[in-house]
């Protein structure tokens, strides 16, 4: 379970001095069991968990960065290595529910490498699905133009 504290509330809860609380929170951060938000003119809020907090950087993070239609993650997606917009489109189609597909449409605006997208689509046997989703996107919103050779 995640619980939120400021430095003062953490110190009070565990009956620590301010300095000891800061040391404890710093240790928890190093162990990956605490994250911090805020700082500067904002009060720091520490989120403390009983177990290590998993940092995601996969499909849902990318979609929620680029799409105005935000998604609640169905699972934690962690990538070790490179993860591109093209791979995210394929993952979005693979997940396949309507909300995910609607959000995935916005990723076509940021495609840089159409060849990579269609190579991945071929490998995952979803060329038709990619084409259809793109055509729907093209009808509904302003997006990048797909090279004609991939539309056939």
């Amino acid at each position, binding site marked *: *379970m995640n619980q939120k504290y400021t430095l003062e509330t953490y110190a009070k809860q565990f009956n620590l001095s301010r300095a000891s609380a800061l040391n404890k929170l710093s240790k928890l951060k190093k162990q*990956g069991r605490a994250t911090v938000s805020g700082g500067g003119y904002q009060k720091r809020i520490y989120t403390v*968990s*009983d*177990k*290590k*907090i*998993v940092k995601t950087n*996969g499909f849902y993070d990318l979609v929620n960065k680029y799409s105005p239609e935000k998604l609640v993650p*169905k*699972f*934690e*997606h*962690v*990538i*070790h*290595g*490179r*993860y591109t917009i093209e791979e995210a489109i394929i993952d979005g189609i693979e*997940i396949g529910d309507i909300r995910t597909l609607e959000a995935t449409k916005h990723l076509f605006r940021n495609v840089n490498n159409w060849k990579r997208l269609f190579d991945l689509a071929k*490998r995952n046997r979803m060329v038709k699905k990619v084409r259809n989703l793109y055509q729907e996107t093209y009808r509904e919103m302003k997006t990048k133009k797909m090279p004609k050779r991939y539309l056939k």
Partner: protein
Amino acid sequence: MINVNEQEELFKLISNFLEKDLSCIAIGGTAMMFSGYKTTTKDIDLVFKNNEDRDIFVKAIYSLGYRQKTLKGIYDKKRIEHQGKPIMYTRVDERFDLFVENIFGFKLDFSDKNIVQKQVFSGKKKLTLVVLPKEYIILLKSVTSRPKDFEDIVTIINLEKKVDWDLIINEAFRQENNNSWIVLDLEETMLKLKKFISKDYIKRLYEKR
């Protein structure tokens, strides 16, 4: 023993030696590490969709120097004789337990229904490890019942306020046809966990029978 970072680095390395993109389910200590329940594990337990996928993975770890080892001394006789037993590969003190489709008869669902986490390692090829909910980790730990498996179950229960024991019991009964001792193993585990779980759940286990 292998820690979280070493495990991630190892999977990254393996993904560079794969012949094609692979997807498998991580269970046991590996799943616990990915879910943040512990920081080290003795063995890496993976379940593959079919023999072909497992062979590709074996080829990759073989080229990294891992060699097959007997199951004796790790699993008991009834598990060694079971069709759903793993093959074991080891190198120094790291060990892979590689299952196909089921774990001693406990069939895993490879659809996206039960996923709580996906770990993707992109090297030359992509290695995707899927992590199942904690309830499945607990149930599978009681099925494999190796030394330290019970300790791991206690660790999960201590860290998680909510464990869906109904789901665990239902799943054990659903899998009973594939292996009759799944329910017996669960019963044994639940009796050992008496102080952590409500009596009603243990009662339910007997009522269902």
